[in-house]
C-alpha cells in the first residue's frame, strides 16, 4: 500500500515514517510542502495521505482543497498543531477524513490511521 507524507519537518516525516513502517507500510513518498506534493501525487497515486497544515509555499489546507478537486476518495489525515475546533471543522469541510493533533504518540497515530482506513473501506497494513 502506498502512503504520501507531506510535512516541512524532516524529523516529523521520519517519525511518521517509522510508525508507518511498524504498521507494515513500506512504500512511502515524501513531500516537503503542498506544492511539492501536488507535483508528485499524480505519478505516485497514494492509497492514503498524511498532511501537515502549516508549511511554506503551499499549506496543507490549500493542498487538501486542490487535491479534492480531482480526487474525492483517497483518505487524507491532517497531522497538525492546529487544535482549535474551528480549524478542525475547516479542515474537515475541505475534505480531510481524520485529524491528529501534535503532540501525538506513535500509538495514537497508528490508531488514527487504522480507523481512517477502516472507515474508508481500505484494507489496513
Amino acid at each position, binding site marked *: 500500500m502506498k502512503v504520501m507524507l507531506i510535512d516541512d*519537518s524532516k524529523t516529523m516525516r521520519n*517519525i511518521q515514517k517509522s510508525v508507518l513502517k511498524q504498521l507494515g507500510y513500506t512504500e512511502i513518498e515524501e513531500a516537503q510542502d503542498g506544492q511539492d506534493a501536488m507535483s508528485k501525487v499524480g505519478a505516485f497515486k497514494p492509497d492514503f495521505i498524511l498532511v501537515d497544515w502549516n508549511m511554506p509555499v503551499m499549506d496543507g489546507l490549500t493542498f487538501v482543497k486542490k487535491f479534492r478537486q480531482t480526487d474525492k476518495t483517497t483518505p487524507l489525515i491532517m497531522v497538525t*498543531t492546529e487544535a482549535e475546533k474551528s480549524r478542525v471543522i475547516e479542515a474537515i469541510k475541505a475534505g480531510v477524513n481524520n485529524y491528529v493533533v*501534535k*503532540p501525538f504518540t*506513535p*500509538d495514537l497515530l497508528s490508531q488514527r490511521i487504522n480507523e481512517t482506513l477502516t472507515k474508508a473501506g481500505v484494507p489496513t497494513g
Partner: protein
Amino acid sequence: MSNALEKYLRLKLDPDKVEATLRIDPGFEVDDVTPESLRAFLDSKAISQQAIDSDAIAELAKSACENADSEEFQEAVVARGTPVEHGLDGRFDFAPHVELLRDQIERRAKAAKNRRFKDQEEAVTAGDNGNGVVDDEYAINFYDDSSFIVVRKGEPIGRIEPPTPGVDGVDVSGNAIAARQGQSADIKIGAGTTETSSGVISAVAGKLSYDAGEIRVDDTLDIQGSVDFSTGNIKFPGDVIIHKGVRDKFEVNAQGNVRIDDLVEAATIRTASDLTLRGGMAGRGSGEIDVQRVAAARYLDGVVGRVGGDLCVEREISNCNLLIAKRIESPNCTIRGGEVRVGRRIEVAQIGGEGEIETGVVLGVIPELEDLCEPLSKIVNLVVTRHSEAQIELDELKQADSKSAAISEKLTEVTFDISSTETHASEIRSRLQTITGSNSTQHLATLVARRAIYPGVTIWMSGWKITLNDTLKGPVVIDLSPEGEVQYTPLGSDGPSKPLAGVAMIVSDDRVPRLTAIDEKLAAVA
C-alpha cells in the same frame, strides 16, 4: 611350370604364416616366368587360392622379365591370409579426474625425491611439463598439493574393463589361426568401494588407494611419518592419525578425530571432532588449534585457538591464548603465562608461578556472546541514557507555559524517542534472553586450584576482576556466592566460604559482563 624355373623361385612365410613373399633369383629364362607359372608354383606350395594376390603376381612376373639381365633378385608379397586378433586382458581404467590426480601425485613424488627443503620459498617448484619446458601449470606447491587422493562418498573412481575373446585369423594356406582369449583383470574391489552398473564408486569419503591389485577407500587417514613436505597439508573428511609430528607452517584439517603421536610445531590443526596431541604442541605463538569438540594434550606451549568442548592437558598450558567453551579438567596441569578463557569450570593444579608471571584466566565466558558482549553493553547504555534524557526533556516540555507549534512538535519528537527506546530495550531484552536461555552458566563458573594460585594471576569472572596479592594455597575452590560475590572455599571442606577480597584485590569489571546486570538495566526501560 618347368623344373628349370623352380630352382630360381623361393617362397618365404612370415612367422604367423599370414603373408607369403615370392622371390625370383637372377639367371632364369625369361620365357619361363609368367603369371601362370608363378601361380602354379604357389599351388605346389599349398598356398590357398583365396590368399593369392593375382595383381601382385602379374606385376612380379612383368618386373622380373623386364629386369632379367639384372644381378638383383625380384620379390613381392603374393599371398595374404587374415591376421589373428588376440583378446585383450581385462584392466581397471581410472576415471579421468582420478587419472589426472594420480599423475599430479606421481609428479609430486618425483619432484620431492631427494629434495631438501631449506625454507618456505623452496616449497614451490618451477613448473616443468616433462619436456624441459617451464610451464606454471606443472608447478608443485609442496604445502598445498596433496600427496594422496581424497574422494567423496559416491564419487566415481573408475571402471573394470572385461577381457575380450579376440578374432581368429587364417594363414596363407587357408588354415585357421586360433585367437588367444584375454585374461580377466586381477583387481579386487576393496573396502570403501562398491561396483555399480556405471563403474566403481566410493562407498565412503576418504583416501583412495590402489595397491597390489586392490582398490580401496579408507575413511581413516593413517600417516606413518610426519606431516611435512612429504605429505603436504592434510585436508581429510574423516579421522586422521599421524604417527609422528606436524612440522612448522603445515595444516591438518579434518572432519573427524585427529590424533598426533609426536610433537606439533607452529602448525595449524583444525578438527570438527576431537583432538588428541600425545606429544604436545610447541606453537611458538603462532601454532593454532580449532577443535569443535574435546581436546587432550600432553602440553600446550605458545598455542592460540579455541575448543568447543572440554580441554584436558597433562602437564602445562604455557603462554597460550585459548578459548575453551566448556571446561579445563586437568588436575595435574599448570597454567602459566598467556590467557585462557573458559565457559564453565577450570580444575588445574596451579595457576601462575614464582616470579609473578602474568597469567590471565577469564571464567564464565560464553563463546557465542564473546564478540557480542562489549557492543551489546554499549548499545544498552546508549538506549538507557537516551531514554532517561528524553524522559527529563518530556517533563520539562510538559511544564512549559507556552503550547506553541514548535513545542508541540518537540513534544511529539520526544514522545517518539521514549517510545522508540522502550521498543528497542524490549527487543534487545527478548533476544538476549533467547541467547542466554541455554547458556546461563555464569553462576556455575568455578575455578579449582589443587596446589596454588600465585600473584601475577588475574581472574575475571562475572563482572569482577580479581588480582591476587598473595599466593592462595590449594586445594581451593573459587566461585560466586548466591549474592554474586566472589568467594573461596578449601576443597573438600563444607566451608565456611570466605570472601576472596581478603587475599585479592577485587574490582568491578565488564570483561565478563554480568548478563543479569544488562537485563536489569533494560528492564528499567522496557
